[in-house]
């Protein structure tokens, strides 16, 4: 479904990704783990069209998407819930959700999707008329995921959804991700919380200073001694 091939990305002269290849198949949950600064956010930003790759190509549903602007990538059904959540703090929760059904495809099913999102995150229904900026961290993340769903994604990309949240909320977010996976949504998940991500994932990639250092099924990586030592602290 998503095919990233031999992608190089740099900020000015500073190369961040080198020859990164990755793929996500239909209905899979794929995770990319790696320490801070490894290039995970850069990878998702590149796929979403926010950064142009220096080399390599990106295909989605067989179509080349590198070099097209982010708002066109969304139209293809490839949706990013960015690092820092990307909610519009001055818009209400409901306005955020309605706005996020922006493409024609998403607009047609807007009311139905809002209902689904509210069922998934009942707290958002309660906070419907509140400004997004007034939500707690966990609620913000729920809104961000809800916004991603509003776009009716074929593939949903999430950049560290558990970042900065209390352990209890992290559990809740992961159980939502599991539920989305069971509902058949294809997901590309980036996490520093490697343990939980690997447990959930069908397949996983380990990114180290901009290169894919390891890849395999989630449980395979969980068993790898070096990875256990460096990233799981076991």
């Amino acid at each position, binding site marked *: 479904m998503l095919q990233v091939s031999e992608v190089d990305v740099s900020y000015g002269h500073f190369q961040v990704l080198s020859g990164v290849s990755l793929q996500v198949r239909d209905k899979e949950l794929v995770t990319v783990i790696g320490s801070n600064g490894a290039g995970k956010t850069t990878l998702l930003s590149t796929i*979403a*069209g*926010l950064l142009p790759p220096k080399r390599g190509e990106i295909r989605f549903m067989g179509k080349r998407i590198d070099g097209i*602007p*982010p*708002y066109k990538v*969304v*139209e293809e059904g490839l*949706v*990013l819930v*960015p690092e820092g959540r*990307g*909610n*519009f*703090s*001055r*818009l209400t929760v409901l*306005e955020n959700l*309605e*706005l*996020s059904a*922006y*493409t024609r495809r*998403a607009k047609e099913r807007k009311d139905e999707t809002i209902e689904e999102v509210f069922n998934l995150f009942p707290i958002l229904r309660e906070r419907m008329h509140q400004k997004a900026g007034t939500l707690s961290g966990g609620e913000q993340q729920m809104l961000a995921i809800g*916004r991603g769903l509003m*776009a009716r994604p074929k593939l949903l990309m999430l950049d560290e959804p558990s970042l900065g949240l209390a352990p209890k909320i992290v559990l809740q977010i992961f159980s939502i991700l599991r539920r989305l996976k069971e509902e058949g949504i294809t997901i590309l998940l980036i996490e520093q919380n490697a343990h939980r991500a690997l447990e959930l994932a069908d397949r996983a990639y380990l990114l180290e200073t901009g290169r894919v250092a390891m890849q395999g099924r989630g449980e395979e990586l969980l068993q790898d001694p070096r990875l256990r030592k460096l990233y799981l602290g076991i």
Partner: protein
Amino acid sequence: MIPSADTILQLIVQALLLGSIYVLMAVGLNVIYGVVKAINWAHGAFVMLGAYAAYWLYELYGISPYASAVFSAIALAAIGAFTHELLMKPFFGMRYFRAITLVVTYGLAILLINITRYMWTDVLRGVNLGVPPATIGAISISRPFLYGGLVAIALSILFYLMLKRTQIGRAARAVSESRKHAMLVGINPNVMSRFMVISGAAMAGVTGSLISTIFAVTPEMGSVLGIKAITIVILGGLGSYAGALIGGLMIGFAEASGTYFLGARYQPLLYFLTLLIVLSIKPTGIAGEE
């Protein structure tokens, strides 16, 4: 001499009406600020062009400024589109684009004012509708103020509702909050910022039509009104709708009462004093955030 209660009431109503026209002017400037994140220095010059359009259409063809406001809006919308495409968009995303936009629109203001001066000289012009004041109870209100104020109020409310209630309004607000995050929703931010700059410029055009019936139309009004508009949005809070409302009414008030009690000469002094006092208490303006 102590003015009578009726005189004071009349003064207040007149100030509110004039203030409403300033609100429309400031809303236009704020709408542009919202997407460009920089003050459009040419806003006063846009108002001036709207006023000249109203003047000439009235003078040559006898078209009422309230009717020709539609033409002013369209003409300024075109100028707004040009400004967005050529003078703003190329700099989006650049490191110093706020400063660049400020300088570039300042240059545009000087250019427009001097072209106008070259074509139509510094002669004071104006639309004299020659209609008697409207009498409401014990007070009488000059009709240009009455009509101008009402049109300005209606347009400000309409645009506010558009921003609040429609998908295009939500998208515009999203772009003014973050171009990047708006793109991730599927919004083309250039389309939205063009729309907002065009809307803001069109509002300046209408402001010009309304003001042509109240003040003398001269090239110089471009810089005077530009400074006034900037004073209002800084006073009220940059980018804030409520700020434009409060700031516009305050300046309308300061001006009307200043003219009555002190004479027109002291007007600029009065609103700069207001600005100084407000900003020393709240540096982001009355309704400004951060």
